[in-house]
């Protein structure tokens, strides 16, 4: 017997063992596996072998190979990062990782509410915990991310009102606007509402002039993509409602311990991203979107997502769970269903539930307060540097803020290059996204940043400007 007899038996493929194969082929009544492909015409058969790298058959070799590639990455842990703009560095409690790497949750999928009772309960609880944070009665099983949550919220508003024109604030993330426009095209027309150049807040006159009886909704974000807080939420919602339109608001859930939720200033639909609630950034892979509404039939029936509800079972006192109004989904109705539903980001929903259960009311308050304090400290200290102004807009901010470097005579690109050499990831360059913000950057400060981190940034910016002065 050859020592390499089982060379082709792969540990992930039990029935590649030759004896088993023979037994199974006999049972089926064919001589070779190839016979099983009889339905695939010869003309469509792939004639050569796949040209892929030689396999790394030992687990050790595989690890070595991948770790070597990954070692080329420089992380936000090894450096000090001030990047935000749609993905944020927050502290991830150890228990969040402990739970979402459990085989039971990690490898479950679409089981029934019997054998997957835990999945249903964990996601029902996620919906319920978010509902408290948002002060709304209905929250969905997560969708892909904020782009999708905003897009779907807008399409829901279109169906609820029967109107196909929507208004969007021009301070929404350009990436999100791009996704929304693609998702709306060609059914829904998107029109942009301007902001006040001094405060960043929505220009209410512009809003009123663009609002009409054909408007389905106004969509804005709070805090905005540029970090300032939109304090006219109630006025915006009122203008929408007076015109028969809905108020749809995107919100950063990490702000809701200290800032009122959109439902408290008239929002009919609230959406956003839960990445900040216990998910690592994962190069953008930690995103997951939420949508929330009041518990009214006309809203609930327009959700495309799964909505898990609590119910009873045949045994007195036992909780059961199931899909609420399943018939509205594309699983039930294909193109007659509401938009579409599929695999999105459920594991991150379970994790956000763990996060909120750990944080509790006080934790969320402390988180919000700490972020407010630290970001204000960073703005104050940066503004003390000659030629630097933070924030650009004259409004209170949360977590993120614009830093205007115009007075330094340097570009953001040059500044960030200098900072990178000092192991600092400077803020996102806004020059191309917002013409008025040329040489401005979007900085993000969370509970993760220490005074030392921020002082380091300030010192590095000072040095950068001084050196530039010496060279010019």
């Amino acid at each position: 017997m050859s020592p390499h007899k089982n060379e082709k038996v792969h540990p992930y493929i039990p029935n590649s063992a030759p004896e088993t194969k023979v037994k199974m082929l006999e049972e089926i009544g064919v001589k070779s596996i190839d016979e099983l492909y009889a339905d695939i015409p010869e003309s469509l058969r792939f004639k050569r072998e796949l040209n892929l790298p030689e396999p790394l058959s030992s687990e050790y070799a595989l690890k070595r190979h991948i770790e070597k590639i990954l070692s080329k990455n420089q992380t936000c842990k090894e450096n000090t990062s001030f990047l935000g703009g749609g993905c944020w560095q927050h502290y991830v409690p150890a228990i969040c990782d402990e739970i979402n790497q459990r085989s039971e949750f990690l490898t479950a999928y679409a089981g029934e509410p019997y054998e997957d009772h835990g999945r249903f309960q964990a996601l029902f609880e996620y919906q319920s915990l978010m509902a408290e944070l948002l002060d709304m009665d209905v929250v969905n099983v997560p969708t892909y991310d904020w782009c999708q949550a905003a897009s779907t919220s807008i399409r829901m508003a279109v169906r609820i009102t029967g109107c196909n024109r929507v208004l969007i604030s021009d301070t929404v993330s350009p990436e999100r606007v791009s996704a929304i426009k693609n998702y709306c095209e060609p059914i829904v027309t998107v029109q942009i509402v301007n902001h006040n150049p001094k405060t960043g807040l929505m220009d209410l006159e512009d809003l009123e002039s663009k609002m009409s009886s054909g408007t389905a909704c106004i969509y804005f974000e709070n805090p905005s993509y540029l970090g300032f807080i939109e304090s006219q939420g109630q006025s915006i919602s009122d203008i929408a409602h007076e015109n028969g339109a809905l108020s749809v608001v995107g919100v950063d859930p990490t702000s809701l311990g200290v800032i009122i939720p959109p439902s408290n200033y008239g929002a009919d639909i609230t959406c956003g991203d839960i990445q900040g609630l216990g998910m690592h950034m994962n190069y953008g892979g930690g995103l997951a979107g939420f949508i929330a509404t009041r518990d009214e039939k006309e809203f609930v029936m327009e959700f495309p997502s799964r909505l898990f509800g609590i119910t009873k079972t045949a045994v007195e006192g036992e909780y059961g769970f199931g899909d609420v109004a399943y018939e509205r989904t594309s699983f039930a109705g294909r193109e007659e269903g509401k938009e579409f539903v599929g695999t999105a980001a459920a594991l991150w929903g379970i994790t956000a539930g763990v996060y909120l259960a750990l944080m509790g009311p006080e934790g969320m308050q402390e988180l919000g307060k700490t972020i407010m304090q630290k970001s204000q400290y960073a703005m104050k200290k940066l503004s003390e540097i000659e030629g630097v102004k933070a924030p650009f807009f004259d409004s209170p901010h949360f977590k993120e803020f614009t830093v205007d470097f115009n007075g330094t005579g340097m570009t953001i690109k040059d500044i960030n290059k200098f900072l990178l050499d000092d192991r600092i990831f400077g803020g996102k360059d806004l020059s191309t996204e917002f013409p008025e913000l040329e040489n401005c950057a979007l900085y993000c400060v969370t509970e993760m940043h220490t005074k030392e981190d921020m002082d380091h940034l300030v010192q590095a910016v000072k040095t950068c400007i001084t050196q530039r002065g010496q060279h010019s």
Partner: protein
Amino acid sequence: MNPRIHFHQAKWDEPIVFELSTKGERGILIGKVEKEIEELVGDGISVLPENMIRKNPPALPEISQMRVLKHYLRLSQQCLGADFNVDIGQGTCTMKYSPKVNEGLSRSGKVCELHPLQDESTVQGALEIMYRLGTFLEEISGMDTFTFQPGGGSSAILAMASIIRAFNDCNGNSKKDEIITTIFSHPSDAAAAAVKGYKVITLYPNEDGFVEVEALEKAVSNRTAGLLITNPEDTGIFNPLIAEFTKIVHDHGGLCGYDQANANGILGITRSREAGFDLCFFNLHKTFSAPHGCGGPAVGALGVKKELVHYLPVPIVGYDGEKYSLNYELPKTVGKVRGFYGVFPAILKAYAWIMSLGGEGLKEAANVAVLNNNYILKKVKEIRGASAPYAEGRHRIEQVRYSWDELTRETGVTTEDVTCRMADFGFHLWSSHHPWVVPQPFTIEPTESYSKEEIDEYIAGLKRVVEEAYTNPEKVKNAPYNSVVHKIDHSTLDDPEKWAITWRSYVKKYKISP
């Protein structure tokens, strides 16, 4: 072989998380800001306009750390992931093994502590993995360029429909307003096309289980924007006429998008390019082994031929021989379909899976998935009351849509009843996507991951339930008994007065004292 007749799933009778709250308990602390910061900026909150300050904290539960941990660990034990059961009863979903070594690698700080807006020079490793996986999928499909941006299969279908629309608009074909699909393609092939404003035409199979050329010819016209189709379809039947289909659609100026969410039976056997497709996508959480995570996070990796590269969502990953970069210069791009570049941990796991198997290993995975499936087909057809509609006497690719129609007619036991009773033996069995063209359907897809012995155990479970159905149908109809919970009352879930989608809503509607 017998099923596990003494099985009982974990049942903790665990309360809802809000019921665990004790005033004053804390699960985690944030830590105070430094004194100097507080001295400089004060409480941080008073800069807010009075009307924006939240006066009442959110009514979240107050629970100590270990109790939170215990709660979620108990809930986790009340799930049957692929790591626990013989997870072959969830057809169309490719519940294969997700190797632990790959999961471990994805949890490295070098992966999870990356911000998507970092300077490209600091993420060369991440970009290299994305680029290389792109080249692998190009080889596997014959497409020219891939993006990983779509967050799942349905998102990839939406992206395909968006590209088809943008392509037609750019070529002055805005009147093309119909998408053709088949009833055994995924529901989202129809639904996501409708989101993009398309009228959907759905074709039905003949008795051999595939749509005939005549049916397509009747449906196709100069209004045809494109074809979105799965092959093999949910029945596991491969439509041998597929190259004719794509030719006919092309002849009418349409594009052809291949839903390869599940391509597990045909890796290295047949490709998208040779069948004439312009676009295709693979679910990395199905065929390429990334775990399903209770339903995501996930990736629908979307590939196109070079004629369509300019329409892809931005950015795509480029490589100049020295450096990897993100390329936003796609003049006709449909824009974004998801934030940033996709779920990187899933991309990494798919890359690692392919690297562990190589080309030959991928083909072996497909071969064994097909071997397993046809073995099960043989065994299920021997079970009284079960049948495999369509394509009598022929082999199937990676899955089969079966029917309990005869069982239901003879015993009154339905597919739903069988799924409930299977849970009592530690198995999951899924009915199937709607509409139920196959009456009382169930779909089994074994993948390559389960041993013959495990498969035999599953078959023994099915046999046992059927035996009960013929001897004591009430036993099956009142199941489950040994699962986590008992027969669920679904009546409240469709009634707006009674449904409760959150705990606060339940407390209000059912007047529970908090």
